[in-house]
């Protein structure tokens, strides 16, 4: 099982609904998906819940993976979609509560740092908007190509490059990364 390539496992899952093969895929990619969602959401427990939902959606939609491009690229697309759906749901919930007269702490559009220790990466992500954050994480943390990011975010490749350029400019002006010292 461990030596089979991702697309072989996917074929097994699609043909026989093999949950053992799916478990192997989850085991291989859970770290990357969870790291992606943790950086995006800024909340570890929310990110892990979203990661579970992401893999459940992946199970339902696994037949849509064509084998073109990497499986992790396809999985991060599902993860990003899951994140956006979750945000839309919580926004709708807040609107409903507001209508019935309950006030709810408005969800900041900005990156909410949940952990007590604020890292340099947290500061860096905080200056970016949601779209920039997602694309920068996909590019620099997950190592996806511009084309894979374009497929994951349903944006043209040119727009992806513009967002990366814009994100780097924001980081450059807000956070002197040239003088950044590690640890």
């Amino acid at each position, binding site marked *: 099982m461990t030596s089979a390539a991702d697309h072989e496992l996917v074929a097994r899952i699609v043909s026989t609904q093999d949950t053992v093969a*799916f478990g192997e895929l989850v*085991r291989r990619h*859970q*770290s990357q998906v969870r*790291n992606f969602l943790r*950086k995006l959401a800024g909340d570890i427990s929310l990110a892990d819940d979203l990661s579970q939902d992401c893999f459940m959606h992946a199970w339902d939609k696994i037949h849509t993976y064509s084998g073109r491009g990497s499986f992790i690229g396809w999985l991060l697309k599902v993860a990003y979609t899951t994140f956006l759906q979750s945000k839309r749901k919580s926004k709708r919930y807040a609107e409903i509560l507001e209508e019935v007269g309950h006030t709810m702490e408005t969800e900041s559009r900005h990156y909410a740092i949940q952990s007590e220790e604020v890292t340099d*990466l947290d500061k860096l992500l905080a200056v970016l908007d949601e779209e920039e954050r997602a694309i*920068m994480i996909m590019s620099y*943390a997950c190592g996806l*190509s511009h084309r894979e990011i374009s497929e994951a975010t349903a944006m043209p490749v040119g727009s992806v490059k513009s967002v990366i350029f814009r994100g780097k400019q924001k980081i450059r002006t807000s956070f002197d990364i040239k003088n950044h010292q590690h640890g």
Partner: protein
Amino acid sequence: MTSRIINMAERIKDAEDRLLESMFESTPIADGGFSALVVRRVRRRLWLRRLALPIAAALGGAIAIKPLAYLLTIVASLSALVPRELIDSTISAIPQLPIIVLGGMVLVACLLGLQSLEE
């Protein structure tokens, strides 16, 4: 050839890109039972889907049995009012019972075949 050049250009990273990569680098997260939890959820969902149709059919049958029996009793009593000649001519027009049973079996076989194809 053009796409190879573009891909190569994309891979050429400057110092800023390398620095960003090092900043974005994350520690691998231990599984800690995560994948087992996901697989359990998937299996539970599979079982629920497999059981849903038979349970729905059984519940539907249980709900419908009493009114259905009552309906059949009424139909039987109404049939006594219909002239005999009309009944005989109608029966001769209806397909024979063996044909009805065969048609039902073909329908069930098609449904089961579709279900297995879907799986």
